[in-house]
């Protein structure tokens, strides 16, 4: 039961991440110097297996935007750091991050992890009405099947009822080898969770 208590404590602090609105709190409780914000940004981009939650990003305030943009624009940045920078920028800047997110998502020279992070960010910062306009072209037109599938997963996770038909149609157009990549996207369309007794 001790483990149970620990988990409760942990969740109470780390949890409720998704309740935070992207871009909603771009001001630090205690204003940080640019240098401190830059230092914190570089540290958070170096997290290994601990997610950086939206409230932690947003606590850095607008001072973090510049350092994050620098990492994203620096072609020598490690792909995983660039991906996390896109994520941080999404949470801090909200819809204002869209041009950078859009550019990264559409750039076929970017590594998959960067494009995935950009797609994830787009799905977070745009409202439902704009989601199709942003992600449908990538679902149907990206040259990389992984990007098509990831775009599909973002659409169905945000609004399964609206996009399952679209994503299923795209999955049907994929080759037999590529179709399994859409499994995650289509899982969002099922109402029944995986049951252990299916085995």
């Amino acid at each position, binding site marked *: *039961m*001790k*483990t*149970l208590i*620990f*988990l*409760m404590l*942990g969740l109470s*602090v*780390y*949890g409720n*991440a*998704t309740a935070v609105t992207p871009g909603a709190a771009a001001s630090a*409780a*205690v204003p940080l110097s640019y240098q401190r914000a830059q*230092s*914190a940004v*570089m*540290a*958070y981009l*170096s*997290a*290994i*297996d*601990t*997610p*950086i*939650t939206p*409230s*932690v990003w*947003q*606590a850095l305030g607008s001072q973090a935007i510049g350092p994050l943009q620098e990492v994203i624009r620096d072609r020598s940045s*490690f*792909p*995983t750091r660039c*991906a996390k920078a896109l*994520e941080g920028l999404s949470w801090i800047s909200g819809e204002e991050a869209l041009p950078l997110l859009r550019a990264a998502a559409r750039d076929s020279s970017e*590594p*998959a*992890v960067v494009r*995935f*992070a950009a797609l*994830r960010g787009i799905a*977070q910062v745009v409202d439902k009405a704009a989601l199709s306009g942003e992600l449908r072209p990538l679902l149907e037109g990206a040259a990389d099947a*992984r990007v098509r*599938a*990831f775009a599909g997963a973002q659409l169905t*996770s945000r609004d399964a009822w609206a996009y399952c038909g679209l994503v299923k149609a795209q999955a049907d157009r994929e080759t037999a*080898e*590529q*179709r*399994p*990549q859409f*499994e*995650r996207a289509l899982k969002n369309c099922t109402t029944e969770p*995986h*049951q*252990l007794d*299916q*085995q």
Partner: protein
Amino acid sequence: MNRKVFATILAGVLCTISAAPIRLAAAGRSSPAVRIVNAANDVRSSAVSGASVSPSAIPAPIVVYAGTVGPATEPSGCQTPTETASTRPFVQRLGLHRVGDIVNFTVPPFTGSISIIEQAAGAPPQTVEVLTEPEPFAVPNAAVASLITEPNGTVLYDDLNGPFPPDLSTAHVVAYDTAYTGTITLPNTTQALTDSSHGYPAGSWSVEVNDRAFECFEAPSLCTGGGSSDQYTLTVITKPIARLLGTLNVAIYFASEAYSGARELSDANFQRYLATLSNIYQATGVKLGTVRLYDLPAWAKALYATGVDASQQGPCAELGQLFTLSQPGDQLNLFFVDDIASGDGGEFEIIGIDGSIPAPSGIGGTIASGAIVNDSDLASGICAATIDFGTCGADEIAYISAHEGGHYMGLYHTSEALGNYFDPLSDTAQCQCSTACLDADQVQLCSTGQLYMTADLCSQPGSTQCGGADNLMFWLLQPPYSKGNFSQQQGKVMRANPVVRAGASQ
């Protein structure tokens, strides 16, 4: 022995450590061995090593391409295999038991570590509800053995009733919650290292088969959704007292579309990765033995082509299902993937995660038998002669792999991000979210969960309250603070894990 004494001993050890060259076995080609000159001095300038290591006594790892593993076609439905046979000599397969059963097992003389592994049979409830105000709170069910009892009746661990000392380093056992397949490996605390230093008491021990649902059943005032009918297959693995040197075999599975085992065998970045991984572990007296590279079948590569969504809980989630492809045998199972999502809705990027802490070492193919590492940076950056975790992608991924491997072998973060939880070892520095490490205006953020203790805040020389950033198991890899260091006790915990074989032979 205090930290200053450790450092003094270490100063004499470090100069003798150099990088181990990599030998290629399967390809039959001459070895383009990677030697990283003087790397050890850069990587572990203040490391506390658990052993006096002579590199000349350490064989280089052998790298083998072992082909494609896993079923040729995608299995239908959720896979929850129980134990895959281990070849270990000290394995006790104790059969299927219902929660609440007290099961005896034997601890031979001079046993230095004990692993107790519960694997669910059937479908235990995935969550229970904790009765909190104003609303109940759902938490995942977990397989956690309890009432671990020595031959003289001393209870080393009672998951329901404790005691749970505030300083976890004084506990006999610390357990980590894992759904479906749960592993407890002793020793994993400072007290346990003392308990086992001359061997755990030989004789007949006992353990209660247990999960959180059963605890709920026994404590109905605290939670609901429990029951007393869940069943688990119980396995106990004992291991003689660990020596100063151990050998660790590694299996790497390429779930990524970008990489394949056959290609990486001769890839310079990958060899750099292995050389750095070998270097990091050498400080603990753990040498890489055989490194086997596996490809996954086309269906699995396609299924995980967009990475792994580790936000999903339970045995049927992507993470657990990927780990069922791990092979039997004693090895650290690392899966390379292109993306790892975490968080409630998969909205956060992470670059590594384990199935459980520790892993069910020696038992492959379970839903917890592995760790995943994001391989996206492998070919990025500039790799000079010396190890640089900040500029060389291969070095960075080696660090991540070593960190996740540390979890696999039972190590926790020296400090968690919020600076409020610490590992159960007394010789690793903590980094506390407190006035000891922060300005007064920042301390007010400690209770809000908005301030993470970054490496620059946790690098005060000689501090046991504001240190630890140089340690491999710090929660961040933040150059230049991160050095990949280990404490002596961390080295002992690793070498005690069943996955590490005694001695330096392959």
